[in-house]
């Protein structure tokens, strides 16, 4: 588990800072306790911001939940992929599945699509601490640390995933899938609700199945 914790540490500063932003923005809309509880039990930044923006604009709870779940729908294919790495009975597997967040999942994946259980679970720990800690500070103390964008902290997330992606691209199949996925996401961003571009980009993984089939035929 320590390997996962260590590997995820570079994302703690931006996760904390974005957590502070969430707390600052959410407290007046939802109340500070609801904002903090949300970070602890939903634990999904982009979904929480999406739900918050619906509520902040006067939308219904149903619309807020729908927007949030759309952003979290990517955890379904991610959970299927990581399923063989979970252990125990159904309840324990369900609990271990909760450690699937973008950072832990991306860190735990190897080139063959196998997942390292220790890194998956360990990787979620610093993310949780940073996210919930940041939300508490933001919700209760306000934006004393300033706008994270001024410090460029928002660029740390894509840079972190790009560094992980570099290690995933050793095979031609992986490079092709990544290129198609990137193109799908880029093209869809302006036209579909947030969450859908990443989800749709997952379809690029089908190229592997199709290519193998063609070779076999």
């Amino acid at each position, binding site marked *: 588990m320590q390997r996962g914790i260590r590997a995820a540490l570079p994302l703690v500063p931006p996760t904390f800072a974005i957590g502070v932003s969430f707390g600052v923005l959410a407290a007046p809309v939802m109340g500070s306790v609801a904002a903090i509880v949300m970070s602890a039990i939903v634990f999904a930044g982009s979904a929480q911001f999406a739900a918050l923006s619906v509520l902040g604009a006067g939308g219904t709870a149903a619309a807020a939940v729908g927007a949030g779940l759309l952003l*979290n729908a990517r955890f379904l294919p991610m959970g299927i992929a990581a*399923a063989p790495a979970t252990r125990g009975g159904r309840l324990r597997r369900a609990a271990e599945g909760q450690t699937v967040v973008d950072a832990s999942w991306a860190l735990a994946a190897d080139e063959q699509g196998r997942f390292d259980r220790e890194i998956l679970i360990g990787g979620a720990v610093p993310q949780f601490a940073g996210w919930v800690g940041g939300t508490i500070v933001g919700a209760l103390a306000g934006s004393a640390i300033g706008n994270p964008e001024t410090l460029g902290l928002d660029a740390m997330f*894509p840079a972190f995933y790009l560094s992980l992606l570099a290690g995933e691209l050793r095979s031609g199949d992986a490079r092709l899938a990544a290129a198609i996925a990137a193109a799908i996401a880029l093209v869809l961003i302006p036209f579909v609700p947030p969450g859908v571009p990443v989800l749709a*980009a997952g379809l690029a*993984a089908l190229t592997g199945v199709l290519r193998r089939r063609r070779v076999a035929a």
Partner: protein
Amino acid sequence: MSAAWATVAALAVGTAAIKAAGPVALGGRALPAPLERLVALLAPSLIAALVIVQTFSSDGKLVVDARVAGLAAATGAIALRRSTIEIVLVAAAVTAAVRALS
């Protein structure tokens, strides 16, 4: 229950169910062969999509801003085989510098 608490509760339950579905349905079984090939390419696909979305989108719009410069710098740091922490710090520093200048 207020709209805020209803949102928190429903989103928490829905998210937990989404995350639990794969591990509970599949258990410890190995994935069927076609699914295994698909899953092998799921990581590069989804990670590439996360990079694109986190670099080029803002509130559901396609934007080109200082993050692009930060990512270009990060790409250089990756090519130079720097550590992950150096890569993310370079991205933040360049993004912040471009924002400060623009």
